[in-house]
Each structure stands twice: as C-alpha cells, then as structure tokens.
C-alpha cells in the first residue's frame, strides 16, 4: 500500500510535469506569435520611443534574434530557474509582482473555500432524502444561487449590506470586515453547485443496500448519514472542489475588481488591459502549478476516502461529471 501511494504520487508528478511543460509551451507560443514587435513591447509598449541602440540591446539580451528553437529552449530554461520575465508595465520581475499580491488572493480564496464547503455540506446533509417540500426548497435555492453570476451577486450584496444597511465596507482589502462580502460573492454560486452535487450523491448512496443494512442494525438516522453515507458522497464533492479551487483565480479577477481589493486578480486584469503579456502568462503558469498540486491532493484524498482504490490500478479514478 505504501508502494501504491508512492507510485501514484510519482505518476501524478510526471503527469504534472507534462501539464507544466504544456503550459510553458503555450506561453512561449503566445509570446512568439503575438503580433507586434516584442522588443518594442519590452521597453515600454507602443508609446515608448526608444533609441535603436536600446532596441538592439534588448533584442540581444532576450535572444530575440535567435532561431525559434533556441528561443524556446531558453524560455523553458528561464522558467525552470523561476524567472517568469519582467513586467512590461511595472518593470519589476513577474514573480515579484505576483508574490506581492498572492497573500490577499490566498486569504480570499481560503475564506471562500471554507464558506462554500461548510455551507454545501451542512445543507446537503440536512436535506438529502427528506420530505418532498424540504428537498424542493433546497434544490430550488441551490439552482437559483448556482445560476447567479458572482459579479451580480456581489452587486446585490453591496446594494444591501454596504449601501443599504452599511454593515460592511464596499471596498478595500484590510481586515476581516472587508473580507466578508467578497468571500460570500465568490463562495455562494459554487456552494450552490457543490451542494447540488453532494445532495445527489447522498441521495444515491442513501438508497444503497448497505445503508438499509446499517439501519436494520438499529442506528439513528444522523449516525447513518455521518458514518456511512457522507464518506461515499465525498468522492464527487472533492472532485468538484478540485476543479473549482483551480478556477478560483478566474473568479478572483471578478471579485477583486468588483470590491476593489488587492490581489492577483486585479493584477491580471490590469495586465490584460495593458497588454502586459509576461504578467498574464505568469499567472497562467501559476494556475497550472496550482492545478497540478490540487490534483495530487485530490488523488491522495481519494485514497484516504476509498481504501478500495489502494488496491485498484493506478488509472482508476472517479470520472469527472459534466457541468451540472
């Protein structure tokens, strides 16, 4: 079994290297084929008026006069050394620019993850396989909340709680007070989706013979749900959670913009607007890295939850459901 885990971690890491290599290649292709002169972009964009000497110096420094394969290799080499390039706009290394903003985004993402997971688990556990009207209300609210775009939810929250009741600040990224609304805006739509997934899984599990079997032993309903059903239903939940946390960076762009918070999302949006490619691609690489790491964690969690997988071939992995 220990071998099994080592093999799985090894396999996942190799696959992860593949994903990262793919991401690095993608960033290279984007840089290489972007219309316009790269050297010009590096020294300050279209409005800068550098001397020919400066252009020549930048071209030589970045190897822009080399053939594509040499450029590709040195691109990969730089990434391996942790050099993601220099921001066209900020003129600081991309790693530094991202590093300065990472804390605020991490704070937001963690808060949203905790809120989303707790809410969906509690609601699903409480309502799965209950009376018709309870399930109706639960699935109805899940549907509405999951269909609500986070930027609109944010506007609603701002209207009610900031400008209406004046409970929470509308902007800023300092203190717990300023975290509440952005975290809710980010977490609620996903809590709807996760709640739906978990409730469907629970209702399926609660129909299984081993649940009936557990009930015939005289266990209380809550015991049956917590001890027997929840563990089975967690598999689809963590699969979805893995995907969702990966998508949090995208969500952060919206939430941080809406609530004028510091963070990687805001950094990314201003980079997109300024055509600051190194920063955009840096965030892409970061996202791929998070994805690889998350998948490893999710795979290990599968093994913790379902010991049967420890004996199954390494490829056995619960399938990923669709958008519903």
């Amino acid at each position: 079994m220990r071998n099994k885990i080592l093999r799985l971690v090894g396999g996942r890491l190799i696959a992860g290297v593949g994903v990262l290599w793919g991401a690095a290649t993608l960033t290279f292709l984007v840089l290489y084929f972007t219309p316009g002169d790269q050297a010009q972009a590096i020294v300050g964009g279209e409005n800068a008026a550098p001397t020919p000497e400066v252009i020549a110096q930048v071209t030589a420094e970045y190897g822009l006069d080399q053939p594509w394969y040499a450029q590709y290799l040195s691109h990969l080499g730089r990434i391996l050394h942790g050099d993601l390039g220099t921001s066209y706009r900020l003129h600081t290394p991309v790693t530094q620019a991202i590093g300065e903003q990472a804390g605020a985004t991490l704070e937001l993402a963690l808060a949203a993850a905790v809120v989303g997971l707790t809410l969906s688990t509690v609601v699903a556990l409480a309502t799965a396989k209950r009376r018709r009207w309870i399930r109706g209300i639960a699935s109805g609210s899940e549907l509405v909340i999951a269909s609500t775009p986070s930027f609109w939810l944010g506007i609603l929250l701002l209207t009610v709680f900031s400008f209406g009741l004046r409970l929470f600040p509308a902007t800023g990224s300092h203190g717990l007070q300023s975290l509440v609304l952005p975290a809710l805006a980010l977490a609620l739509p996903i809590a709807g989706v996760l709640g739906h997934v978990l409730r469907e899984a629970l209702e399926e599990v609660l129909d299984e013979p081993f649940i009936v079997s557990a009930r015939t032993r005289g266990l209380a309903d809550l015991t049956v749900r917590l001890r027997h059903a929840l563990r089975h239903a967690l598999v689809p939940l963590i699969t979805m959670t893995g995907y969702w946390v990966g998508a949090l960076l995208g969500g952060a762009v919206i939430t941080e913009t809406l609530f004028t918070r510091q963070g990687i999302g805001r950094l990314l949006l201003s980079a997109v607007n300024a055509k600051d490619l190194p920063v955009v691609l840096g965030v892409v690489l970061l996202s791929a890295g998070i994805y690889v790491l998350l998948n490893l964690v999710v795979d290990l969690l599968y093994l913790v939850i379902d010991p049967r997988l420890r004996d199954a071939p390494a490829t056995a992995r619960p399938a990923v459901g669709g958008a519903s």
Partner: protein
Amino acid sequence: MTVVTPANPAPPVSARRLRFRPGIRPGVYLAALVLFLLVLATVAPHLFTGQDPLAVDSAQTLRPPSAEHLLGTDENGRDVFSRIVFGTRTSLLLGFGAIAIALAGGGLLGVAAGLGNRFVENLIMRFSDIGLAFPELLLALVVITVAGSGTSNALIAIGVANIPNYARVVRAQTLLIRRSSYVEAAHALGLSVPRVVLRHVLPNAVKPVLILATIGVGSALVAGSALSFLGLGTPPPEPEWGSMLSTARDFISRAWWYGLFPGVAITLTVISVTVVGRALRLRSEGRTW
C-alpha cells in the same frame, strides 16, 4: 395458429408510458416558455419594446421604474428594459456559440479518442489534460490579451477553453457504448465496423452529450457576461447584460434597478437552460422528471 406458449403478459403500452413519463413538472414548462421568449427576443426584439436601446436622453438619466420606462433608465437616460431585450442576442450568442465550438471540437476529439487506437487515445487525452489545467476565464484572458477584446474573441476563447472537458465526456460515453452488449451483438450479426459506429455508437453517444451541453450553455453565458463585466467582451454602447452591470456598479447607491434587472435576466436565463437540460437528462435516463 394456436398460441400455446404465451409470452409474459405485459401491461398495456399506455400504462408503461405512464410509468416512464409521468408528466412534466410545471417548472419545466415555465423554463421552456422563458427560453422560447428569449429566443424570440433574439430574433425579433421589437416585439417586446418600442424603445430604442441606444436612444440617449440627458433629461431622463437614472430614473426609477415608471410607466414610461418599465425598468427605469441608465446614466445616459437609455431605457433599461429595452437594453435588456436587445442585449439578449449577444448574451445568448455567447452562450450557445461558445458551447457549439466546444461541442464541435470536443466531439471530434472525443470520438477519435474513443474509437481510435491506444496511441491516438493517449495523445488526445494528454492534450486535454493540459487543457483542463486552464480555467475558461483565464484562457479567455490570454486570448484577449493577444487578440484584443470583443464579443467574437470572448466567444471563441470560452468555446476553446471548454473543448477538453467535452472531449473527455464524449470519449467516456463512446467507450461505454462501444463496450455495451448491443454493440457486440451488432458485430456478431456481421455489421461492418463503420456501420456499427454510425448506427449504434454515435447516435447513443451524442444524446447525453447534447443534453449536457444544454446545461453548459448556462455557464458559458455567465463566463461571457463576466468578460463584458470586466470590460473585455462586448464594448459599449451596444447593449449586453454583463457590460450593463459593469456600468451599474458605479451607481449602486443611487439606482438599485440598474444593478438589479440585467442580473435577473442572466440568472433567469441560466436557470431556464439548466432546468430544461436537467429535465431532458432525466427523461433520457428513463427517470421521472
């Protein structure tokens, strides 16, 4: 002819139908009606409103809902209801267009992976692994950084970002059907491989994926309006729900209706698409609605 070995008496057909299709819940009808109205608004927005969505009226800025302006006016005095109605086209186009791209690309790759040999399958699946590492919004941002903002770039970006997901689902579905006994029975009858694929594998694989795509339209639509909200999708003054909300953000304290109704439009659309999609899925699985 004497029937001496009677077959098991089956219940009459009507009774069986009843068991599998016990009628559609009213919510599903309602959702289908909303979808129908949305499509109508796309084709013929003039049926719903006589107001010009672009007509600026500086005397009528940020007016609350009234008989003249059902859902109020925006900061330029334009009619919010009319802008929502005329914005339907762009929003639906984003949702359906992006999913069409994802379906076409993902379907082709997924079927190839499901039917092809191990090499083809591995190649396609490893590429889709890499693709899955990029959330749709992030990939869309890369495309927009390079190619510039706009509705069609946003649409393409979201569509492409969804290809890996659909490739996986289509492949899984294809493999499932390829291994089913009825496909084996068709082979045993001596049907040629292309015929088995065209008659049994593809039609049965396509249906669940199409249903899944219905539900996917909702999330693609949200992603599209999110880009517009960030100012990277449909440019103003053209009406689009996301970009309306983007402007409304600056007037939250003064005009609640401006920030409310475009969002209602988005949410209502996504709910309708999801409800109809789920109902189709349940029916195709032979379960109750």
